[in-house]
């Protein structure tokens, strides 16, 4: 029976991906059902291995001191459920819900628009940069949900077409997410699995994201400048403009939410020095948000996206099945064979394959699957793991920008636009997003090769 285990695990994984793509049932049902199938069919029936089940469920992890505080570099057990990721994301979800409840995002968008005197062309540039900066610390779904809504609101008064602005915001949001360990779910999974720090991400993917952001702002400006230059000439009725202060629903909650956000940033930036793990930071920030908003704690907790957390749990079990049965090792050997252990080729293959795959399938399962692949590839080919991790991170984060289904922010941005009477189809979306994605991927490939192959890291 053990000989069938890799085939059964691979079959469950493929089935899970197909069901996610078909979108017939909620995604967390699919991953949980496939996770249960992995535990029963692969581990219990084929492998008869209680150890594999224990390792994959990884339940003991949270009860070890290293889970909350480490003195050196520490990696989450790469096999099975990555509880650090789940707890950190849950904590950040609570914080973001607290900020949204206080009106922080709307206030920030409107305040910046006011600062540039409601000039459409300036708002276009400022909102792109803001999308990138906010997405470095907050999930891109929330950033785009608010930013796109404010863009539409301003577009009605300032009489400009919000579609190009939303497209640029979505792209820059994905780009900003790639800059930090907590910006995009693949990064937090990669970071916790490989023991990388916030500073590691900032000095590697962050550097690439910063160079790319400059290129992306110039690119979108060149493509769409005409629309906004014309809008600048229009007369504006100042009375119709939304007032930033009115976005703040509760002054005290607003100040507290800003402070919690700043504390979260400080804790994340310094976590390699303090030794606090992302699981600790997530738990701490979540609890502080709930305590500060104790009157609305119930509402905030209800709004937390539990479905995403359950989706992660099921996903990690399915990927654990592939790992325990050696399927991912075979993929690593295959990549090793075709690249011949050449670092340039390995970086290019991982980055571009991740990008192309992420343009069409969910980048979270993809990155979770690829982590054991790059780990094996690094150990068998004698390559440093870090450049491979950056290639995977940038590939999965940026590749998703190319199509309307590649990343959650793209879906949210196009949906908000359509709800307000501005449909964005595949053609319209890809026309500006595909060249921008290729531009950033070329920059990322060049930076990684220059830094890790030519200059030797």
């Amino acid at each position, binding site marked *: 029976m053990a000989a069938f285990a890799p085939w059964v695990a691979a079959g469950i994984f493929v089935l899970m991906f197909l069901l996610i*793509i078909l979108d017939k049932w909620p995604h967390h049902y699919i991953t949980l059902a496939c996770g249960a199938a992995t535990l029963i069919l692969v581990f219990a029936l084929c492998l008869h291995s209680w150890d594999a089940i224990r390792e994959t469920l990884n339940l003991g992890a949270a009860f070890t001191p290293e889970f909350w505080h480490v003195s050196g570099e520490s990696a989450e057990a790469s096999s099975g459920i990555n509880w650090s990721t789940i707890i950190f994301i849950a904590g950040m979800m609570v914080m973001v819900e607290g900020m949204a409840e206080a009106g922080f995002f709307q206030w920030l968008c409107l305040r910046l628009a006011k600062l540039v005197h409601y000039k459409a062309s300036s708002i276009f540039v400022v909102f792109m940069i803001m999308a990138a900066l906010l997405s470095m610390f907050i999930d891109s779904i929330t950033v785009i949900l608010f930013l796109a809504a404010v863009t539409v609101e301003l577009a009605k008064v300032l009489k400009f077409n919000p579609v190009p602005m939303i497209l640029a915001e979505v792209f820059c949001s994905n780009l900003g997410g790639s800059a930090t360990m907590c910006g995009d779910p693949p990064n937090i999974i990669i970071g916790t699995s490989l023991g990388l720090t916030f500073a590691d991400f900032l000095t590697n993917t962050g550097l690439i994201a910063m160079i790319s952001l400059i290129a992306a702002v110039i690119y979108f400006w060149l493509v769409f400048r005409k629309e906004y230059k014309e809008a600048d000439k229009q007369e504006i009725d100042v009375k119709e403009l939304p007032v930033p202060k009115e976005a703040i629903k509760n002054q005290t909650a607003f100040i507290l939410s800003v402070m919690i956000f700043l504390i979260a940033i400080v804790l994340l930036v310094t976590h390699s020095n303090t030794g606090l793990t992302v699981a600790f930071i997530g738990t701490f920030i979540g609890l502080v948000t709930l305590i500060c908003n104790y009157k609305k704690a119930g509402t905030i907790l209800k709004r937390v996206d539990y479905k995403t957390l359950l989706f992660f749990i099921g996903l990690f079990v399915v990927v654990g099945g592939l790992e325990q049965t050696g399927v991912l090792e075979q993929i690593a050997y295959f990549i090793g064979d075709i690249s011949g252990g050449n670092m340039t080729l390995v970086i290019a293959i991982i980055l571009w394959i991740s990008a192309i795959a992420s343009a069409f399938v969910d980048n979270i399962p993809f990155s979770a699957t690829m982590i054991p692949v790059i780990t094996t590839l690094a150990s068998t080919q004698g390559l440093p793991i870090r450049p491979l991790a950056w290639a995977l991170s940038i590939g999965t984060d940026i590749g998703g920008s190319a199509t*309307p289904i590649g990343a959650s922010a793209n*879906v949210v941005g196009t949906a*908000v636009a359509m709800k307000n009477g*501005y*449909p964005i*189809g*595949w053609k319209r979306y890809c026309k500006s997003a595909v060249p921008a994605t290729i531009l950033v991927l070329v920059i990322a490939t060049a930076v990684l090769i220059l830094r890790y192959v030519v200059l030797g890291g």
Partner: protein
Amino acid sequence: MNTPSDQIILAIDREFGSGGREIADLLGAHFNLPVYEKNILQNLGIRSQEDVEDLYYRDESPRWKLASRTVKGLTNSNEAALAAMEFDFLRQMAAEGKSFIILGHCAEEVLSEHPGLITLFVSANEEFKIPRIMKENGIDEEQAFAKMKRHNRKRKIYHNSYCEHKWGDARNYDLTIRSDKLGTEGSARFLIAYIHERIPALQKEQGESADSGSSAK
């Protein structure tokens, strides 16, 4: 629900080429009701006329699953978003007490709770549908057959992806009619008589609904 007791909503679903639109127009002229089909797109607040025209072919189309994703209840599928906007528009019209005729758009299920609703399904045999499609579109028999199959398949998948009941299933409609038996005009006359017969009962039902609504308040 605050609806006048003389409100009538006719939800007519139809096979492609069966003359459903023509029958709806005749009923609309008789009862003095506006008829909504593709023109529903003009009422959804879509900003640009160019976009409205682009969306014409996405109207009453199923979501292409491979090309769309849903995140937190939001979807990038213009077809699905359009359907949701259209359903909201229909519900709003019904809640405002307006009388109207709506072709397709899952109206028999979207408005199923509404007391002023009459649901109809119009079908016909191919001998009736094909010549009509050929004449209307200026195409040959083979093309007309392919067009009919394509459109009916699209309507069926669209309907069944949003509704609990199956498209064209007689159990889901108050009345199903074969337009080839009486022709479009004859079918319309028959339906006018049927609707007149239904009106007193509909008015009574709406009155009771309004009474229970006000007593609940």
